[in-house]
């Protein structure tokens, strides 16, 4: 059986049930693709033995009859998810050698449903970055290249390894996490679908924390349908996470009727940023027209505080991170610096954290410490949280006016070259999140859908933002958009 790794989840699900192939066949194909993908640097750890074992167990369940949809589906797991006994480092040196004695809730639910773990996936260190370049494992590489240009491009970040692995058909799908756009931006950069659910949908238990009030796990898949299938397995109430929502789990796939007649789609004028490339502008208009053609009503909406989302985010996320990352101190796990004679506990902390954290993480931890410090808390943190309230109110107003989903570009550009931003100041990199970050601040669901190729032949994505807890409706609109666009391009295999 050839190229089973290129299947979608839904096709694999059907093939497994028809007996066209086994979960073992599927897993073997993915393991082979993963093994031959070194140049993409998408994996941080391979777990072939475990994969085979899980695949065989999945085959037994499939044979027995009532296997869940995810049964036998080979997945890659972002390194931010704790996986029992398997290297989990959040792509940081400070977690060198860490093997958690526990499994994250999200991954344990995927295994409960019979999914197969191929290994762990590369990412930006502690999910801080938009290009995967902050990883201790080195950058993951985008399977896509510019036409006639051999330069290695970033798959985006922070879930860059996940995006590269899915786009490169190293797995059928992958988990990602999204704090400011870390699922949607890499999905857009690699021509795949990425969903950030409503805050509280997925349990955060066992996911290495970056910014607790913003972090959400979500699926990264080849199609909207696949996201719907995988999302159902990932979500659900978890009493171990106080911020997890105690709501029933909808059948997201059942919502995918493709019928969006009568739906109202908002087009926010504030997302028309100065200097936005014409290609993106055109893509956005085309997407809107397609939704209109499918029977939706387009309305211009205003989200007046949009421009403050990025600065508010870069106060709140580092503040939470500075506290969340205080536990990496060389005492309980991970890296501890070699000490000089006479060094005390303070030197151990300072040297361990200086060696263990990369530059971007250090920068954010320090910024976070500063904005929370005495005398600055009100001016930065408290103010940012108030602005956050205003940003959420912007959305509430729009939804109260009858808008079902909001359509925006996913990113301000296509994938850029690895190293291209090396000399730019950090803020230029932060601007990658400009269209995605509002969604995290407001706790809303968002999805990035591949919408076309730019002049260089690189994928571009459009983002749909849904009402809280209405992932099903949002995904249905995304499905209608996907169907209308008919995006089917694949990167040429060069690795």
């Amino acid at each position, binding site marked *: 059986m050839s190229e089973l790794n290129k299947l979608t989840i839904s096709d694999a699900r059907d093939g497994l049930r028809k007996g066209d192939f086994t979960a073992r066949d599927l897993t073997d194909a993915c393991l082979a693709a993963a093994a031959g993908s070194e140049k993409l640097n998408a994996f941080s750890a391979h777990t072939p033995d475990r994969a085979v074992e899980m695949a065989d167990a999945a085959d037994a369940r499939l044979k027995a009859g009532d296997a869940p949809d995810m049964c036998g589906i080979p997945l890659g797991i972002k390194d931010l998810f*704790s996986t029992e006994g398997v290297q*989990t480092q*959040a792509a940081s040196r400070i*977690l060198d050698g*860490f093997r*958690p*004695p*526990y499994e*994250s809730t999200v991954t344990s639910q995927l295994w409960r449903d019979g999914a197969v773990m191929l290994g762990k996936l590369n990412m930006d260190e502690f999910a801080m970055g938009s290009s995967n370049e902050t990883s201790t494992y080195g950058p993951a590489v985008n399977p896509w290249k510019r036409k006639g240009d051999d330069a290695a491009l970033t798959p985006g970040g922070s879930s860059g390894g996940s995006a590269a692995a899915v786009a490169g058909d190293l797995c059928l799908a992958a988990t990602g996490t999204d704090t400011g756009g870390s699922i949607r931006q890499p999905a857009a950069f690699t021509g795949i679908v990425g969903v950030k659910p409503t805050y509280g949908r997925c349990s*955060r*238990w*066992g*996911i*290495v*924390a970056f*910014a*607790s*009030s913003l972090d959400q796990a979500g699926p990264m898949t080849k199609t909207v349908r696949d996201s719907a299938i995988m999302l159902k397995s990932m979500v659900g109430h978890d*009493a*171990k*996470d*106080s*911020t997890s929502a105690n709501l029933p789990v909808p059948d997201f796939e059942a919502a995918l009727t493709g019928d969006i007649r009568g739906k109202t789609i908002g087009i926010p004028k504030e997302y028309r940023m100065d200097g936005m490339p014409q290609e993106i502008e055109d893509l956005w208009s085309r997407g809107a027209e397609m939704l209109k053609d499918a029977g939706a009503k387009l309305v211009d909406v205003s989200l007046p505080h949009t421009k403050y989302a990025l600065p508010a985010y870069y106060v709140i996320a580092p*503040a*939470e991170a*500075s*506290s969340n*990352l*205080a*536990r990496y*101190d060389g*005492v*309980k*796990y991970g890296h501890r610096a070699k000490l000089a004679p006479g060094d005390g*506990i*303070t030197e151990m*902390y300072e040297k361990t954290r200086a060696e263990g954290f990369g530059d971007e993480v250090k920068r954010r931890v320090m910024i976070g*410490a500063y904005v*929370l*410090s*005495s005398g600055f*808390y009100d001016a930065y*943190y408290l103010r940012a949280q108030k602005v956050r309230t205003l940003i959420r109110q912007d959305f509430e107003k729009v939804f109260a006016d009858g808008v079902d989903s909001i359509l925006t570009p996913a990113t301000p550009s296509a994938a850029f070259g690895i190293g291209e931003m090396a000399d730019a100041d950090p803020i230029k990199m932060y601007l990658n999140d400009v269209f995605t970050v509002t969604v995290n601040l407001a706790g809303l669901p968002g999805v990035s859908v591949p919408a076309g190729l730019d002049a260089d032949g690189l994928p571009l994505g459009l983002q749909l933002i849904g009402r809280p807890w209405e992932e099903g409706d949002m995904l249905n609109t995304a499905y209608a958009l996907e169907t209308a666009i008919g995006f089917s391009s694949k990167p040429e295999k060069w690795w």
Partner: protein
Amino acid sequence: MTELAYTEPKPKTIAGAKSDWELVIGMEVHAQVSSNSKLFSGASTAFGAEPNTNVSLVDAAMPGMLPVINDFCVEQAVRTGLGIKAGINLYSRFDRKNYFYPDLPQGYQISQLYHPIVGEGEVLVDMEPGIARKVRIERIHLEQDAGKSVHDMDPEMSFVDLNRTGVALMEIVSRPDIRGPEEAAEYVRKLRQILRYLGTCDGNMQEGSLRADVNVSVCAPGAYEKYRETGDFGHLGTRCEIKNMNSMRFIQQAIDFEARRQIAILEDGGSVDQETRLYDPNKGETRSMRSKEEAHDYRYFPCPDLLPLQLEQAWVDAIRDGLPELPDEKKARLVTDYGITEYDASVLCARRAHADFYEEVASGRDGKQAANWVINELFGRLNKQGLEIEETPVSAAQLGTIIDLIGKGDISGKIAKDLFEIVWSEGGDPAEIVEARGMKQVTDTGAIDAAVAQVIADNPDKAEQAREKPSMAGWFVGQVMKATGGKANPKAVNEAVRRKLGL
């Protein structure tokens, strides 16, 4: 509710080399909630376990672990608040207090800075009958305890045990209303008494269930009153915080030392640095804690892993309805209902079980007599044996029967004490013991007369002397009592002796 009248005690004054100084003390008492499991994890709170065994992955701050609050701990904080007549905040929130320390694995303590669960209340600190200090409570908040660092097992290393990490503490913060070392100790004692009445904290100071940080400053006489009038702390001196005190005796010693240290500095023209200090009981002195001084910037912010804690008024009301009678009310009621002294009532109210025992004994009997028996005989005896009231071999019913036997005239007070001893060591129904062992008092005048006549007949010279010197009659009474095995009614014997001797 009855309230006993009281006056305030005088503040402690220390005479410096140049002038007199007064003490101003505020306290932060950390009371461990008497829960089975920790505030945010399901690990046990049991004392004395092997290192790092009462530790969950949450307590060890493993990556991705999250806190889930213990309902019982919330309830106990509310109970404690109601017990000190404090306002309960239906909306409270948890904040992170960030600092690095090896026994703080998360790198932050989850506490409540901005919105504590309990607001302002008060504690009446009894000094002696009729004298008490009302100490205002600023707030109570819930927070996590830290772990324990052991520094003396290795010359180069410190060892960290996380068993205590995450245990629920109620931090009870007083206003600076305590005015002397004795008051400070009494304040802790009273707080402990209330906590034990409520059952919210076991109050065991040795095991660290109750610890106090003591803020001490000194000021010139009159300055404190200005502070109370204006609320301006500027009238008070600079304070030092003595950390982690877990003995009433050390609290007093530490305050005394610290006050004198500050006075010496001030009289020398210097100024007191606001700092954290540690009391060394071996040297009897406080010293600066450098490690805590370094970075005091705790960067508090709302813990994003938790939602606000919102309580229903009805739930709080139900807790209020279920509160036991507390020491102050109980004491006032015992004084009123049983006619006992405030002093005796204080002794009886020290523990709820003591007062309950007393009330069972006193019910339907003379309150004062019951108090004498319970305090002097029973408590005295329990103390001697190192027993708690729960372990008493003499039950309230048994003690009541003994008192009844005295009242009926069946036994004398002296025999009653013997009877108490028998019941203490052998048990049994006191009335039956009296009957079976012939301990009943002899009131039959015929028998007494005969016994008196016999003693007089046996001692003619003594009888002669007694007729001349009536005070000798006592000797005859004693002889008769001896002859009757102490069972004769002493009053009847006395009368018979006087009659027969013709006095």
